[in-house]
């Protein structure tokens, strides 16, 4: 069955319109030998044959269901309750897309509204958008919001070196051409000393990329003293236990919501969340769902403040983001609703205590020592007696354990430092096995 809708007459008309007589003439600029190359492909497989082929390829993968995992660094192995997929796979949610027509989209709109409400509660902020495609995108959008809040008059962004290295790269990619100066993450400079009256925002991570928890009050105060916004990249699971950034005076809180119901999924799709103060709502990127009443006075949900969005405001919109990550946002909403406040706290406590048990045990092994004695959540950095890559290869090959993140990749002064992550998915036996493996390695 041909899937091309054009008839020969259509084609003739289009060729005539662009002023060429044939398809060959249209493609004449493409060298002949690459125009219709012979592809050296194997014969087509039957459906069953294709299934066998794909299954054997899939068996090459190692998943966290088979191997204990102590890798975090931005993507976290948390439990996904069955209720999440049960709701997600309902066809009303699975197939629905842009909810521009409230008459036919109340379910989708209400789900997004509830997601936004819970994100606000978790972060201590007043408004949330309907989500972004990932934490890194949300961080970049936070920078753009801060620039817009200052009406493009401030051009400096102070970025902590302990914001996720990939997020920092995305912030730079995203804002290139805007004429911004991004400082702070190129050395051990004092962040507060870099703030001045050209600073649009200060961006920090909480807990930071090395897992450490910092009191953000002083940073918030210092940023506000020069009129800059404080942007906090946060781990939503940690917020089940930690003081919300909003209480420290954060102006924008963003992060990746992957840990809340999305699974690791081989790297995506993930979920960017974005929340801010009400006074910055009009400068916020992305769509927002609001609660209203219909003509009969009944509660309803509708996209709101759309006039600042690209599909209406065109080139002068606050952002080019015109969509959201609805299905993954729904997963996060179901996750938060299913766990509730006490469940979120319980998950966070499990992560905290297991990680602290692991850190203490590993710190006792000869040659291994914690990077510092700062408070941390579920990730911590340890100095290792051997190169991290060598340790990880050994853990995987000899013990079937997925080890930690090699911090030397991003921080030259942290060669031979491993970032380990422990969550509720690591029973004590797994942690003890990791300790045994590292002991054997250290001998």
């Amino acid at each position, binding site marked *: 069955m041909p899937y091309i809708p054009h008839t020969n007459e259509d084609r003739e008309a289009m060729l005539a319109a662009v002023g060429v007589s044939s398809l060959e003439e249209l493609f004449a600029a493409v060298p002949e030998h690459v125009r219709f190359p012979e592809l050296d492909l194997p014969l087509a497989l039957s459906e069953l044959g294709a299934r066998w082929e794909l299954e054997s390829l899939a068996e090459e993968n190692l998943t966290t269901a088979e191997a204990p995992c102590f890798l975090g660094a931005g993507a976290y192995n948390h439990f996904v309750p069955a209720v999440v997929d049960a709701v997600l796979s309902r066809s009303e949610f699975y197939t629905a897309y842009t909810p521009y027509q409230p008459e036919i989209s109340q379910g989708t709109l209400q789900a997004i509204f509830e997601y936004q409400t819970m994100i606000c509660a978790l972060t201590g902020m007043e408004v949330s958008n309907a989500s972004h495609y990932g934490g890194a995108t949300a961080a970049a959008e936070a920078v753009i919001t801060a620039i817009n809040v200052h*009406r493009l008059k401030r051009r400096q962004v102070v970025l902590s070196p302990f914001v996720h290295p990939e997020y920092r790269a995305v912030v730079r990619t995203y804002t290139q051409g805007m004429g911004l100066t991004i400082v702070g993450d190129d050395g051990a400079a004092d962040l507060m000393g870099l703030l001045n009256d050209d600073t649009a925002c200060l961006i920090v991570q909480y807990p930071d990329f090395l897992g450490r928890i910092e009191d953000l009050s002083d940073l918030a105060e210092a940023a506000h003293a020069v009129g800059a916004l404080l942007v906090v990249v946060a781990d939503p699971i940690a917020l089940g236990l930690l003081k919300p950034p909003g209480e420290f005076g954060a102006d924008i809180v963003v992060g990746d919501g992957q840990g809340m119901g999305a699974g690791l999924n081989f790297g995506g799709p993930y979920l960017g969340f974005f929340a801010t103060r009400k006074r910055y709502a*009009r400068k916020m990127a992305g769509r927002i769902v609001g609660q209203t009443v219909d003509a009969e006075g009944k509660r309803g949900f509708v996209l709101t403040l759309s*006039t600042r969005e690209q599909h*209406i405001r065109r080139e002068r919109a606050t952002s080019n983001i015109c969509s959201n990550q609805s299905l993954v946002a729904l997963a996060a909403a179901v996750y938060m609703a299913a766990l509730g406040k006490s469940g979120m706290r319980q998950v966070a406590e499990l992560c905290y205590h297991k990680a602290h048990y692991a850190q203490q045990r590993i710190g006792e092994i000869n040659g291994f020592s914690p990077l510092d004695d700062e408070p941390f959540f579920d990730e911590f950095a340890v100095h290792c007696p051997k190169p991290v890559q060598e340790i990880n290869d050994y853990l995987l090959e000899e013990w079937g354990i997925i080890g930690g993140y090699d911090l030397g990749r991003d921080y030259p002064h942290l060669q031979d430092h491993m970032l380990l992550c422990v969550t509720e998915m690591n029973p004590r036996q797994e942690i003890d096995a990791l300790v045994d493996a590292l002991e054997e390695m250290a001998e």
Partner: protein
Amino acid sequence: MKLDPQARYAESHEWARQDGDEIVCGISDHAQESLSDIVYVELPEVGDVLGKGDAFGVVESVKAASDIYMPMGGEITAVNEELEDTPELVNQDPYGQAWLIRFAPSDPAEFDGLMGVEAYEAFVAEEEG
């Protein structure tokens, strides 16, 4: 369409009125009517220096968000902060209570380049086609 005979008009539907050495500026009755219910007004900061035709703010209605442009160049000396809480004034009294900004013109002669009442009326009629 209501018009203020004291004011002069720009093609982008702002009005400008002389008040001593300064210019008071807002959007025309025709503009507010086309936009329908105004829900938010964003204004510049006092001290901003803008050229003729530069966007100085945004008027947002239930239908659209529209940039508003300087009818003449100048330095902003005051903004109508009352509109922050009561943007509907723009619909109710576009030439009076809902003035948007005052500015010190960089070239007072630019005022003469704006349309008078009759010219603006003809301009709107033609634009409506």
